[in-house]
């Protein structure tokens, strides 16, 4: 799957978690930039992405993520054939 296709699907995850139909993610976006992005929302994003892309993230992989761009890269690595 192309990086842009992952970004579009991931954007739907964020819109659903934050209950915001116009939410737009970018590679630079991080938790501190969004008021509602607390640790519980973070878990919901991770698990919703796991379900959407049929992957499983290890705790160590989650802890290394600095921003949405890192997350897209990690998903891309996970689903690479």
């Amino acid at each position, binding site marked *: 799957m192309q990086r842009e296709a992952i970004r579009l699907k991931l954007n739907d995850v964020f819109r659903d978690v934050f209950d915001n139909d116009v939410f737009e993610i970018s590679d630079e976006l991080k938790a501190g930039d969004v008021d509602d992005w*607390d640790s519980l929302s973070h*878990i919901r994003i991770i698990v919703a992405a796991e379900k959407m892309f049929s992957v499983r993230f290890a705790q160590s992989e989650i802890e290394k993520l600095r921003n949405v761009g890192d997350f897209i890269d990690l998903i891309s690595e996970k689903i690479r054939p």
Partner: protein
Amino acid sequence: MQGWSIDMNIEADRDLDRLLHEIGKLWPDHAVRLASAHEALSANAKTAARLNATAICNVHGDRLSEIVKNYKETCEVILGEELYFRRTGTYRASNVSDANDIIAAMPGFWSRYFDGLLLTQVFWTNHVEAFALLKSMVVDQRPKHVLEIGPGHGLIISSISKELPNSECTAWDINRSAIDATQAFAAAMGVDHKVRAHLRDVSAPPPNKVEAFDSIVLFEVLEHVDDPVEMLRHVSRFLSPHALVYVSIPINSPAPDHVGLYRSQDAIETMASKAGFSIVESSLFPQTGYSLKRAIRTDATISYVAAWRECKDR
């Protein structure tokens, strides 16, 4: 509020700030979120949060940094359970035996957890709103005899006693540390002469003398037991005529010691009905940062608070 002067309110504001400052030293971004969440509380909950802050500072003022450290660790443990719950749709433990095994693998869990839960009674929206409403409901009934089963840290029974100077308050727990904690909070709030805390199991055969209470409180208890219906039937033995049972029960709230997963208000009220209780009134409080509508849609944590009455025609 009875018995609380303007000076006490000033002290309570100072103690809330003291706790936030202590949290900010260890976990700055979290302290900012908690301060913001406090501003969004109802007036009743804001008052309860401030008074709880003062009680915590009075009892644990010399170890606040340790309390905050334990609160952060508790949040991390709960996040692990949240991850499990979101992935599987179930709690990790489905019975008390499983929960005990999970907890046994975390040495020192209980003391850290009790500390952590104390701060949630000041800062977590659903916890403090549930605390404040349940306390008001009991106080408004003006009961002569109040029983809390499973007081844990002892904040709620001590707070109720503070506002009901002419009532007798009793607390039963099967955990010695809960009895000690309850006595410590009662002393810190100046009601130790009115709150009797006993090591006692509600399911044990009652003594020969008649014991009856006008209000029985089960605050965050029924999600911890294997058979809540059976427990409620034991509780029924101690209700005076026209008595009410006051409950707070979490919906979709994973924690290492939670074994009863309630997915909705209906699930809780079906359980109450099976035990022979009807619902007098009930309220729902979503977790910090969520509207009730969003919490229901996303299966987020919600605190259910209610007054129940035993159906006499059973």
